[in-house]
């Protein structure tokens, strides 16, 4: 950023009694419920944002267990085959010498979901604290969470592709596992959790704005 900004001089739409529309970015008077430009329902802050995000994040954390323990898929060759979990699939990629692909799958399926859930917990806990850390780093953390979230879908797409492509009767078959369904549900829940988190709340305390929802 080019220059240091004096936080005192800045005013949020809420403290000015206005509501910004998230769809068309017009500003509305505070007593409006429908945006005058695009007709969307407008909220000063997403209603129940923190509670919704807590619920979705906790559910996603619970689903992290079955999605890592249950098999993603079974590759059957001549009637024999061993079910692969996410981790064992990555290990076998490394054993076959496919290091770049192994690293990509490890990042997308293990690192991103875990770091995303930890990040969401950090944001949620910080909102409840009396003296939270800086607003800017937390907003940046949210942007990272939002950007990388969808890359976790990689493994779900790969399983779906392999199931279809590898269907050669007795010679080779890929059977999907329950882990794929749990993993997919977990990723979708974390995306919903990030969408329901209202970053404007991070900045509210800074202005000493205690008017509540």
């Amino acid at each position, binding site marked *: *950023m080019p220059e240091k*900004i004096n*936080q005192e001089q*800045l*005013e*949020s*739409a809420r403290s000015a009694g*206005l*509501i*910004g529309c*998230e*769809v*068309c*970015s*017009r*500003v*509305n*008077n505070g007593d409006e419920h429908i945006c*005058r*430009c*695009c*007709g*969307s329902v407008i909220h000063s802050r997403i209603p129940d944002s923190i509670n919704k995000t807590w619920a979705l994040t906790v559910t996603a954390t619970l689903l992290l267990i079955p999605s890592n323990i249950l098999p993603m898929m079974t590759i059957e060759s001549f009637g024999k085959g061993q079910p692969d979990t996410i981790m064992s699939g990555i290990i076998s*990629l490394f054993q076959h010498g*496919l290091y770049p*692909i192994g690293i*990509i*799958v490890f990042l997308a399926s293990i690192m991103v979901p875990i770091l995303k859930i930890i990040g969401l917990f950090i944001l949620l806990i910080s909102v409840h604290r009396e003296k939270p850390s800086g607003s*800017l780093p937390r*907003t940046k953390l949210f942007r990272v969470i939002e950007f990388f979230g*969808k*890359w976790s*879908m*990689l493994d*779900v*797409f*790969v*399983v*779906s*592709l*392999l*199931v*279809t*492509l*590898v*269907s*050669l009767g007795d*010679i*080779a078959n890929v059977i*999907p596992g*329950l882990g*794929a*369904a749990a993993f*997919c549900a977990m990723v*979708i829940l974390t995306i919903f959790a990030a*969408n329901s988190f209202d*970053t*404007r709340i*991070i*900045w509210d305390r800074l202005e000493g704005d205690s008017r509540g929802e």
Partner: protein
Amino acid sequence: MDSNSLDKLTACRECDLLVERITLVENQHAHCPRCNALLYIGRKDPVNTTLVVSISGLLMVFPAYFLPLMEMGTLGLTNSSSIFETLVPMMSGAYWIAAISLFLFAILIPVLLLLFSFWISLHLRINSYPNYLIPLQRLYQSLVSWGMPEVYILGIIVSLVKLLDDFTVVVGPGLFSFCVMMFCSLLVTTTVSRQYFWEALQHAREN
């Protein structure tokens, strides 16, 4: 406040800061002075570029979905599948959630993004503003974050590398068309200007 003085302002989507609205020249980006969020971008000729990109993408839809993606085989047996055929075996059992998310995020939404941006830009081009254009633009904006064409392309690459280890794989014409279509769908989200749409709409209402 009356609507004229409200129109001079915008609120940051991420930190709710009130910022004065300024007119940008081409390729300029307006950032929030407090949280540095991207407020809006001055795009170069958004309507015509969007039309070009979306039409190119839409031309590829049919070959991308119905021509074989790849053909693989071993010991003389082969199997080829198009994108649509990849959905069928996943629809049974508890995997419907994976099948539905594959269908929505990687197949349906990228095409809808192309279709909607084409239709909206066409109307902006001929200066026609039917009533359904506003809900259509709103739907387009909410779908943007759910389109995952780039993730699906990486998924295809990962599957290809895994398969090449044990099988012979021949890439089909569907894969090429699919990649072009997905690229257009990604590109179109960077050529569409939301700012331009809402301003053109307001301008049309006032006249």
